[in-house]
Every structure is written in structure tokens, then in C-alpha cells.
């Protein structure tokens, strides 16, 4: 089978797509919390995407992504049988999975796929698993079935209250802790601003918390430093030192600022793509 051929595809929610891709070398080494970098074609950029599921035996990986910029929109147009030019991985350190006791995985939006990968690992390690998954609205809820299969408790929330309940993941986590539930460990992944507020809460309660970061990357092997983040005052490269870091040490504001680095260029690329009738 040709490398990096798309084997299956689904739209999970508006502009959120799921792909199964033939990538046996990545699949055989993948661990929860790791990511890949892909390049669609000769003129493409390299973008990191987190690993959702994989099968060593069948040689595939699964990724879930949201169409937010030119490259992800273009990837969204790839159909079953199409090939992605380059995929490298698995990259980054795997999430440190151990039996902490009672763990809470807090995911926001398309942080859900990596939240799922890590949650599954934590469950398999014997933890009591609570998942708090936040989404914008009912239409954007993804992976509910997958989460409910592994979680001892699944707490879904929507920003507008159109499904299950209204509120942010921070509200749910706070209520959960204040209700007297014992929490030994929190893993959080999603929008940076959400991770920042989750970290603020758990810091107050002195709960060990790890955040999975998503900065801009190029090579993903520690060569360029585009992904540098400040953790405990030190410069770290998320691609090789992370992507997981102690959430209480991360400078989230700086990460938010750095993620906006190419906002103008991203708009230019997107407009040009749409004008050419890309999708």
C-alpha cells in the first residue's frame, strides 16, 4: 500500500474531520500524547497534528483536525485514496502515564482527540478516570461515544448550553473539586486560554497538572526553535521537551502571543486559497 494513503474519512462536526491514514512506521512506535508532522504536497507547509488512535498491526494512524487555516482546509478536501506527501513521527515525549489514583482529563474543542488518547492510557494504568469535555455547542460535540466507553465519569459541557449543560470546562472542574471529589492528577488539552484557567484552578488546590501544548512547529525534532515556550522561566522546545509540561510553570500568555505570529500571513494564504476555488 502506498505510504500515507488516506484509508477512511469522516466529518465529525462542522469543519472537524477524522482521517485514518496508512503510516505503519508511525503506528508501530506511537504512544499517547505524541504527534506527527505532515506536509501535504511539494509546496506545503509542515504542521503538527496530534495522534488520536493507531494500530500497530494494521499500520494505520488516526488524526482529528479542525479546518482553521489553508493547510487544514486543504487537508479536509483530501478523500479516501488520496495520499499525503510526508508524515513523520511519532514526535514529542509520550505523556507520562502512571497510576495516580483519581485523574481528571479536561479537554476543550479539538483537544478532545489527544485528551482521549491520554485518558485511555490513564484508564489502562488503573486510574479512576473522569473526563470533562467542553465544546462550543451541540453541533461541535465530538468523541462522546469514545469517551463514555473508557471514562468512569464523563462530564460534557457546552459554552451555550445547547447540550447537557451550559458552562466552560473550568466551571465544571471547579464544581467537581468543590463537591469534595478527590483529584490526584489533571491532564488538560485544548485552547491555550482554557488550559491557562484550568491551571489557575488546580494551582489553588495544589493538584499536579500537565498541559499538552500546541505551538507553531517546523521540523519537530528540536532543530528550529519555532515552538519555544517558557516553562518555569526557562526556554523549552515543545517538540522535544514536550509537548506536555507542568501546567503551573507554563507561560500561557506568551504562548498565546506566539501562536498569533503569522496571523496576517495565514489570512493571506487562506484568501488566496479560497480565490483559487480550493474548497
Amino acid at each position, binding site marked *: 500500500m502506498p505510504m500515507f494513503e488516506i484509508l477512511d474519512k469522516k466529518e465529525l462536526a462542522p469543519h472537524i474531520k477524522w482521517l485514518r491514514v496508512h503510516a505503519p*512506521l*508511525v503506528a508501530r*512506535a506511537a504512544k499517547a500524547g505524541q504527534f506527527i508532522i505532515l*506536509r501535504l504536497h511539494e*509546496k*506545503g*507547509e*509542515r504542521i503538527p497534528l496530534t495522534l488520536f488512535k493507531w494500530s500497530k498491526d494494521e499500520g494505520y494512524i488516526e488524526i482529528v483536525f479542525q479546518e482553521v487555516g*489553508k*493547510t487544514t482546509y486543504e487537508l479536509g478536501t483530501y478523500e479516501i485514496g488520496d495520499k499525503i*506527501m*510526508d*508524515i*513523520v*513521527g*511519532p*514526535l514529542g515525549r509520550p505523556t507520562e502515564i502512571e497510576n495516580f489514583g483519581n485523574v481528571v482529563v479536561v479537554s476543550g474543542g479539538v483537544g478532545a482527540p489527544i485528551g482521549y488518547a491520554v485518558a485511555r492510557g490513564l484508564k489502562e494504568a488503573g486510574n479512576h478516570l473522569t473526563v470533562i469535555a467542553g465544546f462550543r455547542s451541540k453541533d461541535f460535540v465530538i468523541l462522546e461515544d469514545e469517551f463514555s466507553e473508557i471514562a468512569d465519569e464523563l462530564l460534557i459541557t457546552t459554552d451555550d448550553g445547547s447540550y447537557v449543560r451550559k458552562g466552560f470546562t473550568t466551571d465544571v472542574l471547579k464544581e467537581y473539586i468543590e463537591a469534595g471529589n478527590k483529584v490526584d492528577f489533571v491532564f488538560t488539552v485544548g485552547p491555550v486560554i482554557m488550559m491557562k484557567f484550568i491551571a489557575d484552578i488546580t494551582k489553588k488546590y495544589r493538584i499536579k497538572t500537565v498541559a499538552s501544548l500546541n505551538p507553531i512547529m*517546523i*521540523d519537530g*525534532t*528540536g*532543530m*528550529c*526553535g*519555532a515552538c*519555544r*515556550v*517558557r516553562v518555569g522561566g*526557562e*526556554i523549552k522546545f515543545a517538540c*522535544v521537551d514536550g509537548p506536555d509540561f507542568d501546567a503551573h510553570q507554563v507561560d500561557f500568555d*506568551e504562548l498565546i*502571543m*506566539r501562536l*498569533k*505570529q*503569522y496571523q496576517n*500571513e*495565514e489570512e*493571506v*494564504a487562506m484568501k*488566496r486559497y479560497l480565490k483559487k476555488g480550493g474548497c
Partner: protein
Amino acid sequence: MAKKIKKKRIAVPEQDPYARIHNFNEVSLGYTWELAIEEASRCLQCPYPSPCMKGCPVDVNIPGFIKKILEKDIKGALEIIHATNSLPGITGRVCPQEQQCEMNCIMGKVGDKINIGKLGRFVADEARKQGIYPSTPSVEKKGKKVAVVGSGPAGLTAAADLVKMGYDVTMYEALHEPGGVLIYGIPEFRLPKNIVRYEVKFLKMLGVNVITNVVIGKTFSLYELLNEYDAVFLGTGAGTPKLLNLPGVNLNGIYSANEFLTRINLMKAYKFPEYDTPIRKGKKLAVIGGGNVAIDAARCALRIGYEEVYIIYRRTREYMTAREEEIIHAEEEGVKFMFLVSPVEFLGDENGNVKVIRLIMNELGEPDSSGRRRPIPIPGTEFGLEVDAVVFAIGQKPNKVLYQEVPELKTTEQGTIVVDEKYRTTLKGVFAGGDAVRGEATVVLAMGDGKKAAKAIDEYLSNGYPWPDKIEPAKF
């Protein structure tokens, strides 16, 4: 009757500075046949082994190939070079010949030294133009497998030599294109990428299996390679950029040279939005550092449209480690040099974009361990320089991450892999060379390592896999 000696070196045609800062085409156009023969005729043809050869890290028979140019025998010239150097199109462009072969040239006593670099390049270019490859005598297969990790100068050379000896060679590259620093680091205008591709193609013709998109330490572990191969060569380079942890260093618009050059060279950001990878544009850019990488970054900046480009160096011009030819090219192109200054802080706007570098003046003190006079900041001399972007080109260190799961592989405090004089690491069957053991050197020194390591690997595999109990660290 004695021939009249031509004292003057034949000039190499170059693109005009005003034109070339608007394109990424090669600056040096290289010799024509006519000019090459004229320059070649200046060579005194010293007896073997000539002084120039002694300065060559890869032992090229220099008078030999120059003689073949005079005979208009390009294939012959190419084969003489290829006997010891598999990458002539690359070395002819990026070797510091003035510190190597040309330094020893006898002609220097009576006039200009022979332009060995440009003659070597002429041979490679002419052969490529005519589609000539060196003959590849069939070798007896040894039935043993060697993995080469990294496809930069050290890896390419080791792979070429090993495959010529009859080994099955597989070369692994983490990026999507082979070539290492030759592809991501050195800019198109100094080393066109089609030349690197051509040399890699020849390696594939020789039978080297080149696999991209595989990160050793991630996709495969080093242990897995050792299970599958009889020996492993690590030519993983010095790919981790150094940055100064100064206030504001993570502001937007502040790049490592690796990132800046990778965006431009590997990802073709200068063609954005035709290519998808962007790079920050603006009017003023400052590069911090005084080596070849700093010069490359500064000259790239001009070509992507920066109007004022500064090189900020903490010592003086004579201490710069960049090649003289590159410094001159940068000066011709309008790069502004600021000596005896160091950055202390970066200031940004409300959106986190870098706007000002705060600099401090230095004076030179006593020589440091490198033999160069140490810069000492002069209190109270701080001043600001307005910028839209900054590039750190203050050096790289080896990428430790690749081997962090391999405790047996000993590294130095600087992060370089410890090897003995036969390029053996502290892990049996694993050899290493190039910047991964040197820290930071040149393309040709890495090639020399690849060559000598290939020889050491052959010795190891031919003599029943002996390995010393203790590795005596070699000095590089």
C-alpha cells in the same frame, strides 16, 4: 624554455550585487571552459603528494584533476575527484579553501594561489551539465548492512564510501528531503539545491537506500537499528540552536538562524504565498553573530525584502569566523556591520512583536579559550536599535534528544558524542562523526569524518567486530 608564470588569479564571474539581492540565484557564476583552462594552466603541477593535497580533509588529488581540465577531459577530472570526494559540486562551493588546500599552494610565493575551489566546482558543474557520472565499478557485495543516521555531509560521505566498499547501506533522514544542513541551512544563492539533489541521486545510483521522514530515537530506536544492522554511523550534526535567555527573547519576529534559514531554504518561504510556509517581512532586521550562518541569514534577509540588515557582532571584524569571501559578498550587498556590541534585551509592541533591540558596547579584553580577545561590556553604553525581526546566529549544539533514551552513549558536557580516533562511540557497533562529535565545524571536516569513519567501520566489520572496553576520547 620555462613557461611564463601567470601571477594573477583568473577572476570568477559573479552576479552584480544590485541585481542579486533581489533574487536567490547563485552569486558566483563559476568559470567558463576558457577561464577554467586559463586558471588551470597557472598550476605548477607539484609532484605527488602536493602541498595542496595535504591541506585537503578528503585527500583530493588536486594537481591530478587540474591536469585533466587542461586536457579537456571532464570525466577523467571528475573520476579523480570522486575517488576520494563524493560531493564535488558541494565542496567546490562551500569549503573554506583559503584555510585548506589553497593555503598551502606554492604559487602563493610568487603570485596568487590557484583557485582550487572554483576549478573543482567547474569540473562538477560541467559534468552535471553534460550528464556525466563517474564510472561505478561493480564491487563484490559483503553481505553486511550499515545504517547511516542523518543525510548531511558526514552521512552522505560515509554512505558513499561504504556502498563503494560493498556494504548494504541505508541512510535515514528526519526531514522530508535528504541533505541535512546542505538543504535546510546553506542558502540557494550559495549552494543551489539542485546540486545537492544531483549528488544524492548519484548516491542512490550507487545503491544507497535513502529513507526520509524517519527520526531515529522516535520512529526507530538506536537499539532497533543495532538489531537490524551490523554497524551504525551517526552523522546527526549540530542541529539545536543556541539562544540567549535575555528579556524578550521569545517575542514574535525573533528567530533562531535554523528556523529563519529552514523556512527560507527548505520550505521556500521566499515564495510565499505560492508556497505555504510564511516568513516575517519588514524593513529592518538584525542578525546576532559573526559566523557563516550569520552571513547567510543576513544575505537571505536582503533577498526577502528587508531594506536595512545589520550584523551585530560582539568582537571586531578580524575575529569573525565567517569566510572572507562571504563577508565581502555581504558587504557588497549592503549588509551593515556593527562591531563590539552585544544584545541585552528585546522590547516589543502591544502585540508581542519585537521592535527594539537594546545593545551594549564592548571592549576587548584578554584572549579566551578560543584564542580570541574576550568582549567585555562597557557599563552605561546601552542604546537601542529599531528592528522588525532578529535572527540569532550564535551557534548550534548537537541534538541530544535523538539519543536521550540511550544512556550507554556517552556525550560530553557540550552535548557532543564521545568517540575515539576511530570514530567509535561508547556503544558497540555505533560510530559517529561530523558536527555530532565536533560541535560545530565545516562541511568538509564532516565529510572527512564520514570518510575516516567508513574506513573504521570496514575495519570493524572485516576483523570480527572487535570493540575496545574503554573508549579513549579523541580530540577534534
